[in-house]
């Protein structure tokens, strides 16, 4: 047994700080070492997610898609190619659901890991680097997004809202892109935030308007020319549009490529910012 004879004096922060490990592990190794931690988190928290991940969106589908949709004429010209309002609204709802999960998993939990539970500090005391923490965190969030969207899409299949069998699979991948873009960007935002008040603002001025005006519930053409262009600039619209064109099988491949590029670029920018902001935050 090692005998440590150094008296436990209180050392100042500056002398105690060892050089921060900067990715001595490979990215894959850094992530896989956190596998059991996140598995435990999942085991302890999945129940809480059931209501918000599955039940709430299903209620929306029934209320908005089926019941309200019963009063809306299924005119493909007015509904971006969908033959019923249900078929129109479902791909949009799932895409905005991907955003909601990504955002809610990267707001309070990130602040918790920095400020309340200090999990990040504990993890950094190991060979893990900031980059690895971000990767595993986003990986966990994406597991939640992927599973929730997959279940959602499978449940909706019997409603007859999908035009082809392969469309929903590509739509699911586009929902994952939405999840990637929002989880990395919001992670970057949360890592800078000192108080949770900022989350209330983010939800009310970010998530809710995006959900409502990014073409999930109605074609953005209904917004009028100016607001339509504003909607086109929002990241969620790219995801909604991509998800919908695959589901209703009216794919404009060049537009689809643009959507993918936008979402991928946002993800990369978000990831870089997330790593940088977290690194700075944990230093102070």
């Amino acid at each position: 047994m090692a005998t440590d004879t150094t008296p436990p004096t209180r050392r100042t922060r500056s002398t105690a700080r060892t050089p921060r490990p900067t990715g001595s592990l490979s990215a894959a190794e850094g992530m896989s070492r956190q596998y059991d931690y996140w598995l435990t988190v999942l085991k302890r928290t999945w129940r809480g997610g059931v209501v918000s991940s599955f039940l709430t969106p299903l209620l929306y589908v029934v209320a908005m898609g089926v019941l309200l949709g019963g009063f809306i004429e299924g005119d493909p010209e007015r509904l971006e190619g969908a033959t019923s309002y249900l078929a129109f609204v479902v791909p949009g709802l799932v895409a905005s659901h991907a955003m909601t999960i990504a955002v809610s998993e990267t707001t309070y939990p990130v602040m918790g890991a920095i400020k309340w539970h200090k999990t990040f500090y504990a993890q950094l005391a190991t060979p893990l680097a900031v980059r690895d923490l971000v990767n595993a965190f986003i990986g966990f969030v994406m597991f939640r997004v992927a599973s929730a969207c997959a279940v959602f899409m499978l449940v909706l299949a019997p409603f007859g809202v999908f035009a082809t069998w392969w469309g929903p699979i590509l739509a699911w991948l586009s929902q994952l892109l939405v999840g990637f873009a929002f989880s990395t960007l919001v992670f970057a935002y949360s890592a800078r935030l000192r108080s949770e008040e900022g989350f209330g603002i983010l939800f009310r001025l970010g998530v809710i308007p995006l959900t409502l005006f990014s073409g999930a519930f109605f074609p953005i053409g209904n917004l009028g020319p100016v607001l339509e262009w504003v909607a086109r600039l929002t990241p969620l619209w790219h995801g909604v549009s991509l998800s919908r064109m695959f589901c209703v099988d009216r794919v404009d491949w060049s537009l689809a490529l643009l959507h993918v590029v936008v979402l991928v670029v946002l993800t990369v920018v978000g990831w870089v910012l997330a790593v940088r902001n977290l690194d700075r935050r944990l230093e102070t």
Partner: protein
Amino acid sequence: MAVLDGIPAPLTPGAATKVLVLRNYVVYRGAWKLFITGFLEPVFYLFSIGIGVGQLIDTFEFHGQAIPYAEFVAPAMLATSAFNGALLDSTYNVFFKLKYEKLYDQMLATPLSTGDIARGEIVWGLLRGSVYSAAFLVVMSLMGLTSSWWALLALPATVLIAFAFSAVCMAATTWMKSWQDFDKITLAQMPLFLFSATFFPIEAFGDGVLRWVVEATPLYRGVVLCRELTTGVVTWESGVSVVYLVVMGIIGLAVVRRRLDALLLT
């Protein structure tokens, strides 16, 4: 203030409520951004669903009148925002104060009683909610979505909705043990929000039992009351809704008081 043998005299219910409301005001002043954005939420819903989705829908019939979709949805947004606000205030916030901040224990060390606390918290919630409702009503009338002077009474109607739900939800909160229990609140909140003839007419439920069930739920009464007032079609049914909500609130308040007694004074 009258002080007898060093023990301050108990406050009158009015004075006690005032103290509590003032306390909440002082605390909330720091979060004014949150306060302002709270108003935007129902307005966003109104623009999105009322205008955006409204363009896909002709008109709905309400008490024999054909009304445009935005005019149909707006009063429902008014009622549901009073409902949502009351629900958040009287569940999460009360739970936090009760369990973590131990705020009520501290208050009870002063001349305040449990009844004062229940009344004070609810009155504060109502005041905050009515500011939102009044602002929303102004937006509605500016957009031409109110068609009668009865609409002025929609403001007291939202206060009534908020009162009924605050009281009942605060009572429910006194039984909660952990944050996980709030799933049950969401479980009640979402169906009420989505199925109380908010986005589509009650006729969508057919003429069977389902429709009767919906008609008997409190938020439906609130939505219909607001819709009757803003469209100016006031009927006996409006009276039923008012009585329903008043009774619901009074029962809730009595339960809150009894529960706070049990939780904090024994």
